[in-house]
């Protein structure tokens, strides 16, 4: 399989009050095309920092991050923005959307800004609606963001992250702010997206979420302490067993 993300010796250091905090220490890993990788670890281990560093949202202190063949540490702000717009999709824990736009407008906004897909505005709208239909939220297309539930909003965020047909989706605790039902719905959709070929890297504290991935990276104090590989597309009956095995492994890691 093609390597889509290649991280070598990644270091990230913050200086706070003249004190150096090494958040990520020589982290190296790869993500292959079509994978769904979960990053887990205790609070403060650097999970979100890792996600934002490898996606070019945050700068890195040392090391190399190669995404789709581009060394993102050498790209300027404009090139990074173009990369995020056309090749990456983002989902955040909070359902961040622009307050004064409708759900559909929020979803198609990146597509209207991008020239990656040569299409008319009408076609963009149709594509946005198709995505919404697929994720079961077409009925809220013209609603304002205050008129929908958290689960619906997060699914709308997934639609937005997919609108420009990205190579990879980065998700920072996508179910962190959702109740159990909504959380399951969102993960079902993400799994579906992944099974259709989109690579996903997500940060989570939830074993149930991680159990749906193909690989789990366990981060402690800025280092990858362990890696756990899972088979693709488990059936619901297998899932419970995977969760148990994953929990055991996490316990071993010190979870």
């Amino acid at each position, binding site marked *: 399989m093609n390597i889509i993300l290649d991280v070598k010796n990644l270091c990230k250091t913050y200086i706070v009050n003249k004190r150096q905090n090494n958040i990520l220490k020589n982290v190296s890993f790869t993500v292959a095309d079509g994978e769904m990788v979960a990053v887990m670890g205790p609070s403060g281990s650097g999970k979100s920092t890792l996600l934002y560093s490898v996606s070019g949202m945050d700068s890195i202190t040392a090391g190399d991050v190669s995404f789709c063949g581009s060394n993102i540490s050498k790209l300027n702000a404009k090139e990074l923005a173009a990369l995020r717009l056309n090749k990456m999709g983002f989902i955040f824990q909070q359902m961040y959307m622009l307050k004064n736009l409708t759900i559909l407008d929020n979803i198609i906004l990146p597509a209207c800004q*991008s020239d990656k897909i040569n299409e008319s505005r009408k076609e963009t709208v149709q594509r946005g609606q198709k995505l919404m239909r697929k994720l079961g939220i077409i009925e809220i297309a013209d609603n304002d963001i205050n008129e929908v539930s958290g689960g619906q909003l997060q699914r709308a965020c997934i639609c937005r992250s997919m609108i420009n047909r990205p190579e990879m989706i980065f998700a920072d605790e996508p179910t962190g702010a959702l109740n159990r039902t909504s959380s399951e719905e969102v993960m079902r959709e993400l799994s579906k997206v992944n099974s259709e070929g989109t690579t996903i890297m997500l940060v989570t504290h939830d074993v149930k979420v991680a159990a749906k991935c193909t690989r789990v990276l366990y981060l402690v104090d800025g280092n990858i302490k362990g890696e756990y590989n899972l088979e693709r597309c488990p059936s619901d009956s297998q899932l419970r067993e995977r969760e148990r095995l994953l929990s055991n492994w996490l316990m071993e890691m010190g979870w």
Partner: protein
Amino acid sequence: MYFRIIKKDLKRKKTMNVILLIFIMLAATFISSSANNMISVMTALDTYFEMAEVPDYWFLTTDSNSTKRFEEFVNENNYNFKSLDLMMIDSNEIKLDGSKFEYSGSICISGLKNSIKVFDSGDKEITSVKDGEIYITSALFNEEQYNFSENSRIQITIGDKTKEFTLKGSTKDAEFGSESIGTTRFIVSENDFKYFYDKDTVIMNSINVYTDDEEYLDKFYNLELNTLFNLDKSAIKRMYFMDMLIALVMLIVSVCLILISMVILRFTINFTMSEEFREIGVMKAIGISNRKIRGLYIVKYLAISLAGASIGLFFSIPFGKIMMKDVAKNIIIPNQNNVVLNIVCAAGTAAVVVLFCYFCTRKIKKISPIDAIRNGENGERYSEKSIISLKKLRFSPIIFMALNDIFSGLKRFIAMIVIFILGLLLIIIPENTINTLQSDSRVTLFNMAECNHVISQELLFISNTDYKKVMTDKLNNIKNVLDKNNIEAKVFQEATFRMTVSYKGKKESSLAFQGLGDVTTDMYAYLEGTAPQKNDEIAISKLVADRIGANIGDTVEVKNGDQIKEYIITATLQSMNNLGEGIRFYQDEELDYSYVNGCFGIQVKYSDFPDEDELNQRKALLEKVEPDNKIFTPGEYIGYMIGDISGQIGNIRNLILALVLCVNILVTVLMVKSFIVKEKGELAILKAIGFNDSSLIAWQTIRIGIILLISIVFCTLLSTPLSKLTIEPIFKMMGAVSIKFEIVPIKVYLFYPLIIFVVTVLAAWITSFQLRKISAFEVSNIE
């Protein structure tokens, strides 16, 4: 504890606090200096008139019989009066430092005996003038084009007598010092005056009457004297309206600035509060009283206000002096530096700011601690709703977002719109005033017909008893020259008289006009009715008609010299001559021209429509025909008659333009910075999903641009009615009942808005660069 919170707040929001400080400072500077100037000028006229012993009534006459009759009248009635002899000088016969003196206004010369008191440039009374020395009025002295200076050599010729004088300085002359009076006075020694005095010389008498007799005017009109004009003290005071106008414009600017300061303050307080909802909520939750929370803000704004007002006070003194420099040239302004008033105004500004803060912080009372902690958004409701949709519009997302922000949350841009509108109005209103004052059609307000050129004529009225024939010959001569050059034109001129008009026992003395040469009464502008078409028909100014209680269709009696005749009023007209006087006679009516008391310049109206080049060529031709006189456009001629107020307003407009640009830059910087702080989360999201910095900078800039365009549209709609509202009363004071504002669309609707637009949008663009500091990563820090 409180002071530590305030100290931290001042440090944390440094930029916004500094901008607010600058606004308060500017407001305090302008209010203190302008209020001081206004009060100084208002009281100064009274004080100055008292010092100068300005009479209760003043009139000028060239008719010795009228002077004699008046002297008999005042002796019978025991009125206190002074009669001053003046001689008119032909400005063509004056040489300044050996060169010809190119001046087209009227000039007279007198000694000091029987004159009202006059003062030098240092406000000291001039009690005597040595032989060979001369003083001129400050209005003329200060005209840059003539380069007058102390010790300039001025040679005067009257009749066959010539004498050279040394210019001693300028005078503040209450009667002849206003630019509106149209005649300037040179003061020489009694001996030098007598030297020129000759029985053949036309003497003009300036008669000053001091009385509190309320029936004086009625008795005076019954005398039916032949006067050039007669004014009471209030009318003399109104002659200084131009000087007052400058101070008034600055006061309006100041009022606008304080309004802008208030709008900014309101925005800042609301913004600060929405930003600090969480802190306010926590303070409320832990039991700090509303009064104390409110006190925190009030103390903060009190500190900023006091600092701003103090700095403003410091600057107001030199600024006020600069503003008064022009006004103090013509009149005595006592107590120019009324520091107490400055302090009161600056303190007032600070007090208003604090009071405003007090009212703005009422909101604290209404919000619950939990609402405040939730930052006003409890997760279930947002105030902003989408108004337009990206799916329906074909705009780029950046333009769409800018438009949607404005339409979905117009309230937060109101402050900006108000400020931009006020700023633009402050430029456009003076600009409309200048264009109206400079327009050629303004001649119609001075009882003249519209024309293309005016040839100055100053002295013909003095000695010509056969004025009509001399002038008609002259007009024919000019017309012949034009005919020879294949230029078809009407050449005409206004002769003026002083006549008494009466209706049902009410009498009024008024300036009267008759056109000589190729002119008919239908060429003049009238307010109502139709132009006089017969010998016994007249048009009459609205002011005179109102004073005698006559209307169109009424028959009035008019006394011309010794002759009394009845005339039917067929029309009313507006007149800015002598603050509203005017009677127009039919062109063929036989008037007694031995009583003519003045004339306007010779007017030339071309039958074709020459372009500017052709007009310049024709002007050159007229200059050859009339080498001793100046050729003006009609607008220039009026400027020459009443003084160049448009130049002064022009200077002020330029000052205002610079000020408005500064204000717009400051407001834009403040607002854009505020928006960036407020929209930090949204900017981070947009960056995270792939919007680059330049797109986001364009978003912020386009939004300001649209706001500015909205303001320009509103301003365009408001400018004409507001120009009328503010400027028309001033014209009314001068006798112009209905003014047609001259609007130069390119300047008003394109040039100034474009300057404002470019500078403001540039300020927004540069300020928006600040958003580059926001990282997409900060999306994880959104609260």
